[in-house]
């Protein structure tokens, strides 16, 4: 059986059977305002960015706008494409293994409508919250399901 090195949401290395994997393309926003980055906290698992999985039948830019609205209540304008990363991750909620393809875009907030916030069951289980994090603090945070590339992407976004 073919296996591959992957990671859990807490960042522990695990071996995954390739046959157990399924594709999970997803899209995330880098929103920087007043030297702070908007981040999503997955309870004890740590931090990542707002965004999420691309649904079947959905255009990826529409996914990003929808996810931001549902998770943060912000209506955003999608800007530059920044980066793409792949990871093989075990889902913390279901016994599922994902071949994730994470697409990162720079975004800007156009308006704020907290009544649009609508979290999914998995997001509620994970104790999902949004926080503005000082750019200087990002390197000290525990990241959820990330292999250390996020800080690099944020740095490249600032340089642009």
């Amino acid at each position, binding site marked *: 059986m073919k296996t591959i090195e992957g990671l859990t949401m807490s960042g522990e290395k695990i071996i995954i059977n*390739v046959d157990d994997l399924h594709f999970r393309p997803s899209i995330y926003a880098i929103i920087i305002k007043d030297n702070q980055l908007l981040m999503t906290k997955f309870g004890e698992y740590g931090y990542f960015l707002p965004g999420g999985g691309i649904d*079947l039948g959905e255009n990826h830019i529409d996914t990003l706008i929808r996810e931001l609205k549902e998770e943060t209540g912000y209506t955003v304008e999608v800007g530059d494409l920044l980066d793409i990363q*792949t990871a093989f991750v075990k889902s913390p909620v279901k016994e599922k293994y994902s071949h994730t*393809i994470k*697409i990162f875009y720079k975004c800007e907030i156009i308006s704020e409508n907290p009544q649009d916030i609508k979290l999914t069951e998995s997001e509620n289980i994970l104790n999902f919250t949004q926080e503005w994090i000082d750019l200087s603090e990002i390197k000290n945070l525990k990241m959820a399901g990330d292999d250390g590339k996020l800080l690099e992407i944020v740095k490249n976004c600032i340089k642009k």
Partner: protein
Amino acid sequence: MNKTVTGEDKDGNKIEMDVASLNLRPSVYGIIVKDNKVLMFKQDFGYTLPGGGVEIGEKLKDAISREIKEETGYQVKMKNIVEVTDSFFKLPGSGKNCQTIRMFFLCEIISEEISEIHLEPTETIFNSKPEWIELSELENIKIGDNADLVSIIKKAM
């Protein structure tokens, strides 16, 4: 009523596809430029960029090297991402409905050595072969792709 999405068949005809029937098929394409020429894949129906589907468990950089080596014989290294597009289509052959996230990367040739080309049956029937196209000629060739490849290539420059 089931949710549907508009896609295309192999001849570019619009078709309605049941969302629940879609198979996710991420794919990667390379933009390789050398001496003011871009490496393209010539097929009966027009020019495309070399590349193809990512296999499950395969990293993007490995998928792009594998596809480009099979289709053009060149060994390349993946550089930065240039564009991402969505496409909904019916696969010729199996008839499967697919949702493709198409990722276009700038690539660089890393070896002078050119290996033998290995095409899929779906590529040989279109007489596919690699060809270097002058950047100044891009506007004059027939593009065989629903994505705006000329703009994507220019964006990579």
